[in-house]
């Protein structure tokens, strides 16, 4: 006796969260059954293995049918075939688009192309996430990217509207799309200590301040060719950043800046001497020079991609090697950016603020072990 056909259809579609998780994690039906057995479900319910197998198959089939709709979540809301309560719909979408930290760190900043997709085998082997799950996550990233890349307006809002994500997930996806679009390098060994959350935090700040959308220019220039305002960095701004070079090139300005910072921080900083030493021009780990040089280099795409590598090399690592406490880093960065306002000879105050406010936020987030 073999079961040829075995189905269960409810007027309200049954969703078993546990099975959904197993399905999302890319387990086959037999693996899922084995995992459920191991979780002790047979003992809890008194069911037989056959019942469990049938149940799992049924759920998998349902999920498979729902998957097509999950690719365009508004369709899930409007479709008539599966009657699913709103809270369940939200859960289905949220879980489907959720991603693994380990996976996203591998892909973050990479071009979402076929080439990357070919590497998923390696990522799967490296992270222990099933290939199926890797593919789903990768396809999710790519799908969201494709839908919002040509869109005007806030990146996170666009994502939320077209994919019905929660706030949190929409912001995470905004970061992923932003990183993929700007191809920031995140895979270098010295960046391995950083979490996705660190990058997402920085992405949000950069989207807020460094993109075209941030300055609200586009509406006044409707004929501009720039559609994806939140995704691309403001090119003019990046060009202008060259002007900041004067802060390290002009000896007077540099000295003045240094003395102002030192005066303000004397006695407040545990690492005062190290800080002071760092201002000296020949010092190999000149913090100020580092930060300004990073800014000046951002005209080249290659250097934009290496932004995080540079920040870690030029700032985080030197401070860390001198054992700066986070509080001291904060005090220093605040003072360092504020005192520029007192430099009479410096004309690019607004530019400095736009650069430094974001950078300060990023650096503080990146500064940890």
């Amino acid at each position, binding site marked *: *006796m*073999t*079961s*040829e*056909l*075995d*189905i*269960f*259809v*409810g*007027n*309200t*579609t*049954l969703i*078993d*969260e546990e099975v959904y998780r197993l399905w999302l994690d890319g387990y086959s039906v037999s693996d899922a059954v084995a995992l459920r057995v191991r979780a002790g479900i047979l003992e809890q*319910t*008194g*069911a*037989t293995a*056959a*019942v*469990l197998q*049938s*149940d799992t*198959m*049924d759920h998998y*089939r*349902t999920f*498979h*049918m729902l998957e097509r709709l999950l690719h365009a*979540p*508004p*369709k899930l*809301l*409007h*479709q*008539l*075939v*599966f*009657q*699913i*309560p*709103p*809270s*369940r*719909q*939200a859960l289905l*979408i949220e879980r489907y688009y959720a991603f693994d930290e380990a996976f996203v760190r591998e892909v973050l900043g990479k071009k979402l192309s076929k080439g990357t997709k070919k590497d998923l085998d390696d990522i799967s082997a490296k992270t222990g996430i099933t290939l199926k799950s890797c593919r789903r996550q990768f396809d999710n990233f790519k799908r969201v990217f494709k839908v919002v890349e040509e869109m005007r307006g806030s990146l996170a809002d666009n994502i*939320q*509207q077209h*994919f*019905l*994500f*929660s706030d949190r997930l929409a912001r995470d996806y905004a970061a992923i799309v932003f990183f993929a679009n700007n191809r920031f390098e995140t895979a270098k060994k010295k960046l391995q200590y950083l979490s996705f959350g660190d990058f997402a935090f920085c992405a949000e700040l950069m989207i807020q301040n460094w993109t075209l959308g941030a300055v609200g220019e586009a509406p006044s220039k409707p004929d501009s060719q720039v559609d994806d305002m939140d995704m691309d960095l403001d090119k003019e701004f990046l060009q202008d950043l060259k002007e900041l070079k004067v802060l390290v090139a002009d000896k007077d300005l540099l000295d003045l800046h240094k003395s102002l910072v030192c005066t303000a921080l004397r006695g407040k900083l545990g690492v005062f001497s190290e800080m002071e030493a760092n201002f000296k021009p020949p010092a190999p780990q000149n913090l100020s020079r580092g930060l300004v040089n990073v800014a000046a280099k951002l005209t080249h795409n290659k250097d934009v991609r290496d932004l995080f590598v540079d920040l870690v090399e030029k700032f985080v690592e030197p401070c860390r090697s001198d054992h700066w406490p986070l509080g001291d880093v904060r005090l220093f960065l605040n003072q360092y950016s504020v005192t520029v306002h007192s430099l009479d000879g410096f004309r690019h105050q607004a530019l400095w603020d736009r650069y430094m406010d974001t950078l300060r936020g990023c650096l503080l987030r990146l500064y940890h072990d």
Partner: protein
Amino acid sequence: MPGKLKVKIVAGRHLPVMDRASDLTDAFVEVKFGNTTFKTDVYLKSLNPQWNSEWFKFEVDDEDLQDEPLQITVLDHDTYSANDAIGKVYIDIDPLLYSEAATVISGWFPIYDTIHGIRGEINVVVKVDLFNDLNRFRQSSCGVKFFCTTSIPKCYRAVIIHGFVEELVVNEDPEYQWIDRIRTPRASNEARQRLISLMSGELQRKIGLKVLEMRGNAVVGYLQCFDLEGESGLVVRAIGTACTLDKLSSPAAFLPACNSPSKEMKESPLAHPPSHGCRSTHNSPIHTATGSRLTQNFSVSVPTLIYTGMGSGSAGKEGGPFKALLRQQTQSALEQREFPFFTLTAFPPGFLVHVGGVVSARSVKLLDRIHNPDEPETRDAWWAEIRQEIKSHAKALGCHAVVGYSESTSICEEVCILSASGTAAVLNPRFLQDGTVEGCLEQRIEENLPAGCGFCHIPYDELNMPFPAHLTYCYNCRKQKVPDVLFTTIDLPTDATVVGKGCLIQARLCRLKKKAQAEANATAISNLLPFMEYEVHTQLMNKLKLKGMNALFGLRIQITVGENMLMGLASATAVYLAALPMPGGIQIAGKTPSDGSYEQHISHMQKKISDTIAKNKELYEINPPEISEEIIGSPIPEPKQRSRLLRSQSESSDEVTELDLSHGKKDAFVLEIDDTDAMEDVHSLLTDVPPPSGFYSCNTEIMPGINNWTSEIQMFTSVRVIRLSSLNLTNQALNKNFNDLCENLLKSLYFKLRSMIPCCLCHVNFTVSLPEDELIQVTVTAVAITFDKNQALQTTKTHIEKSLQRASTDNEELLQFPLELCSDSLPSHPFPPAKAVTVEKASPMGEGNFRNRSAPPCANSTVGVVKMTPLSFIPGAKITKYLGIINMFFIRETTSLREEGGVSGFLHAFIAEVFAMVRAHVAALGGNAVVSYIMKQCVFMENPNKNQAQCLINVSGDAVIFVRESELEVISTQQPTANCQQSCAGGEVTT
């Protein structure tokens, strides 16, 4: 020209891509009614076209309005080649033809294609202007209301219950016409769908005419079925009960029976103390009728069984004359009728006087081509013959009517088994004619009918019983005689006194038969049938005793015929009726008592059975009040009945005292184990596993003994097909396979629905079919309802509090594993009578805009929730309006079975789509639920080698609007605003 049909095509959405080059579609719509067709403009390059058409007007006879479906076809315009069909929508406009139902049909309908399934949706508005027609000889019957519900619908009162109406129409099946060889499967499927839709309309109209003739205004318990007779044609037949119904005006005036029946169940607790003495008897309830032969066709009428029959007359001194009078009266009311049958299964209080027992008749026929579709005499004669038989069985039981009546067929190749069954009964004449029988007599009759047990009293002459039976004085009133076991096809009467809870009982049986042709085949089948019925009955009786119960309700026996086997499946809900005597146990008697080890084995089995009975009594809380022997008195001496064939014997108590373990002097049901078959029977008795704790199941409307339902319901359909592996099957192996199939299916259901515990599966409906030689298909439809373990609804005041509590618990459940779309805290069906709100809420899908974009995600689904249930009510809610019947027929076919996920994927998707189309039609009528939903047919055929499959599904039900009781209360306390706020806060959003 008494009607004008107006149709407007508003918009489409989610259309499939028809042009690969542009990834878009140039869609337009054809609207067809009768022979008239209109077209919309082509809406270029869009998957979400906005046609916003003018009103297309069709001027038609109301006869056509009743027969024809509105046919809407969505096409893709193609300049160079033929336009491609995207799909179709058939809309039955019948609900618009009577004043109290829907006034407009408006909403999103899934666009359905028989090859591709649902392909997007279309927004349509339909209206009908009817002109008054005074023509007496009209052929239409507009205005007659139809209900699938097999009881008086909740917001109506029965003035008169006229009785049985039936009709059948036949036609050639398009699938078997010569043209089918040259047309596409799609065209063939569509021709079939259209034809059945047309025939259903015609059938309904003809039945309506009969109702008007009887001066009724409604058909209740309307059951329409179609028989796919293959080469010989297509039969659509329907039966129902004609009534004159009065609408109850104010919602407050609902009869108590009209609320969720659960409520008044508890009002009849064990409050009838035993008074008089009773005598213990026993019956072996088999009655055999002889076969007959029809002239025009080969046919074999099968020996028929009458399950529990009782006599009438001299039961009690006082009862006698009244009963006689009553019979005279009712007879006069019923005698004019050819068939005093009623398809109802639940009745207005006082309608049902006595219940005799189950009567059934079967007949095996050979099909031949229907030569003249306009005169379906042969089929009519077949059914008339069977009905006559049923009528005579009822008469033999001293009954003049049959209630809970139903008919069914099973067809395999050219052999067809026609079956009819019902419950013989004596009815109160008051409801049967125009109030002529009023006055003292009736009152006296009613005085003489004790509540809660009257229907159990035997309606026939004790001295002239059609078969031997054990009678006792009623354990409730002590005045009249009752049988020891009662089988019925009806629902448990609401005033019946029940001890403990009930449970689902099934008897399952397979019999192999040789493959044969035509007459030899029919003879072989009809020779097998009596044995099958007999065994099914024995199984039911054994299982009933094993549960420690004494009555069956909702009994449905299905005999299915296949190429090489017959299957029998009987389902019923067992209960313990307080009026009936306590059932005796089951005794096992060995045939060769000399063998020591054998005896040991027997006693071991005996112990197991006794333990099971004791366990079941505990499980179902069966603790009837103890009655001492002196009060009961001595048994009536009666003839002992022995039957070798049965291997079950009635033994009078003194003979079995030594074996009797725990049942005192009660009669025991003796199973004599004389061969391996019998051994197996006993084993199979013990293999039925009770449902896991927290689960109950029944096949009646509600579970006796549970009355505190919550609003959480989940209707479902489950289908299983197994392939029998070995070719040399034995009956035993077959039985085991079938048993396992059913048991495993139930186990799976319990597992799937475990989050609803404590919960009861209600109206569990099993259907067996044998699509091919080695395939067995079982289809189950039922509804799971959660009940509240601790709280019993008592007063209105506590009810309000409770609904609040419930709301909060529902909330918690929602987080964990909510099965239902709406809980009390998330009132997705707020239908407060406040007029301003009703319309929008009633058809939340009625508007076609996509405003959700700016709103927070997921909180605003534009799709309204539609509940579906096979029950006639919705727990915790009141039905305020019936919008008309839903009767839909779909065909789905595929030539890419593997790509669609194999047979399971294919059927799963199809059933989900059928549900969706039913919901969409209900929503478009302005409803939020389907009650009395039934999947009448699910014919599945596969050909995996060709990568093909086809499935036909026929469903029906009543579209209704319901209002939550909690909301009614809020309204009644004059807080409509609070109600509105509540519903808004609950996440209800109208577009």
